[in-house]
């Protein structure tokens, strides 16, 4: 991992009229980092990822980094349901101006395990397979950073296992991954770092162990403490 941030948010604020959704959120993501964005419903996790992805503009603050492209995988699959898996990948590859379209499509089909489903219309696939196509499209341009919004929400346990295996592989190969999730156990298990967001405020930026330490007050590793309970306790304490 190099020290130069691939993606950085500095004082990012997002307003919707009079309502402030994000309050001066700042953090950095370095190469190969796997970062979990966790928080209760309405914490504005999706809004933060949308601002990072360039879908929504920040009202104040800035988003930057030294990396190349930023891949984005929204929670709802953003692919054409009337096109086949291969046609979707080829179209998005053309739109992304990927150099070798055919080779890229073949590679992404292999990586996502969709080679046998290449000629099926996306609309006829299961939710899990659609999500795999969605992720494949986000990965087409070999982005330096990948933003995943609730990637495992529609998946069964087996599909979830495959997904995290894939995501960890990306991270191991140097791609920075930021994912949001409701499932805090996933964050503890897979992420090297967690960002705790509540009501648009970044409450914690550190490893899962850091959050446990914050709650238990112990300086050593807090083995045996349930991470989800610790997360809930942390949120309650922060709101007081």
């Amino acid at each position, binding site marked *: 991992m190099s020290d130069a941030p691939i*993606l950085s*948010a500095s004082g*990012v604020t997002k307003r919707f009229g009079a309502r402030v959704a994000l309050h001066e959120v700042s953090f950095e993501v370095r190469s190969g980092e796997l970062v979990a964005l966790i928080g209760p419903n309405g914490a504005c996790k999706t809004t933060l990822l*949308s*601002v*990072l*992805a*360039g*879908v*929504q*503009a*920040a009202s104040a*603050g*800035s*988003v*930057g*980094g030294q990396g190349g492209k*930023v891949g*984005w995988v*929204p929670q*709802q*699959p*953003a*692919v*054409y*349901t*009337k*096109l086949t898996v291969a*046609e979707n990948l080829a*179209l*998005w590859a*053309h*739109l*992304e*101006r990927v150099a070798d379209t055919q080779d890229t499509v073949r590679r992404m089909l292999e990586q996502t395990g969709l080679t046998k489903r290449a000629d099926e*219309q996306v609309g006829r696939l299961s939710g899990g397979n659609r999500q795999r196509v969605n992720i494949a*499209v986000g990965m087409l341009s070999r982005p330096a950073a990948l933003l995943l919004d609730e990637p495992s929400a529609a998946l069964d346990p087996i599909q979830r296992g495959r997904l995290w295996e894939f995501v960890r592989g990306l991270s191991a190969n140097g791609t920075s991954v930021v994912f949001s999730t409701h499932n805090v156990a996933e964050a503890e298990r897979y992420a090297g770092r967690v960002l705790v967001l509540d009501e648009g405020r970044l409450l914690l930026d550190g490893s899962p162990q850091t959050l446990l330490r914050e709650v238990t007050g112990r300086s050593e590793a807090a083995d045996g403490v349930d991470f989800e309970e610790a997360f809930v306790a942390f949120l309650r304490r922060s709101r007081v």
Partner: protein
Amino acid sequence: MTEIARMRWLLHKDFLILRRSRVLVAVLVVYPVAIALLIGLALSRSPGKPKVAIVNLAPPGATVELGGSKVEVGRYYSQLFSEVQPLKVKTRAEAIEKVRSGEALAAVVIPANIAAKLSSVLSQGQLEVIYNGDALQQSLAQSKIQAAVAQANLEISLQIRKLASRGISLLLQGGDLSQLGINQKRLLGLEQLPKVLSRVIARVPTARDKQELQRIKELADFAASNLNLSRNVLATIGQPVQVRSVLVHGRRTPLDTFAVVVAVSISLMFVCVLLAAGGIALEREDNTLPRLLRGPPGSGGSGGAGGSLISREGLVAEKLLLAGACSLVLAFAMLAGIGAFVTLDWSRIGLWLLALVAGALAFGALGVAIGALAREVRAASLLAFLLSLPLAFLALVPAGAVAPGVYDVIRAVSVVFPFKAALQALDAAVNGAEPAIAGSLAHLLALTLLFGILARIGLRRT
């Protein structure tokens, strides 16, 4: 260049999706063509003749006697029957039953004494009309029967005028009175009377007799000249108002070719608006808009193409191109197909295409604006349909058909909706009708720009 290449890929994708949505394409083509043809037929054909039960109680061969001449009552009936589909029945009760059962829309009872009444000249003949059906059907039957009665009355009045005119001619010029049914020898005419009197005056010895005869001669002169005028007066009374048609504004378009223009314009509108609205709404439904339009991190999507896969303007143009191309092909095929049955001036084909392209652009921009507002294809299609159809009908409302204030509102609505401008452009292109095509084309281009801007604003809601 990159933007155009990306537009090309999106177009390719949309045509692929269209090819896979055969039912949608079939509905998109068949439905507007069917609607357009129905409207075209309704406009070009007058309403059919209503079925009317006729009870003729007058004795067969009854005639009206006027001044010794006979006019057959049968001629009156035949005039009446020509305007309706007659169902001949024998009794009034039978006629009422036909009307009640709905077999006939109305019944006309011709009374037995009609010939006597007409012959008397002092009282009018009376027909009894029995109606049924809803207000619209009653109105149709009533107007048809009234028109037929007016035409038949005119026919009778013409007969009477002819007879009266013949009598006046006999009075003026003299002749055989037997043609008026009067058994008398040859009659001296008023016009000859002054000459006869002049000769008599010359032979009369006394001045007093001469003076009296001279006064009679002057009376005969005056009577002859005034009676001559009465023939014109009779003609004027028989038909006081005549119609002479003068078209003040523009070239007259035959009804059938105007119906063609209406049918093609409606098809162009439906296909274009529905495709454009559906195309952009499908991007939203498939959740692909944010992915297409997102810009560099933190930017919130592109103002131009910088950083995004395609700019909003590029996306609007792509959908406009898709809808425009499809509707143009359909509308031109329709125009050419109908051209096989209705005489069209093929030397104006360049103008046809120009009008169709301008219309397609304006309708496409409207469709994209509608699609940008809706969140899903069904909502977009419904919105496009609900907006297009009534506004198209409003544009067809002629001046004078509604109150002036209402017509002003209709005109204002028609100005901001492309249908009327497209209709006028196509009418000018196909039929050379006024207003000139240039104004309509400029109007359509302005609407394209307006709806294009609205569509771009609508796309900000990714």
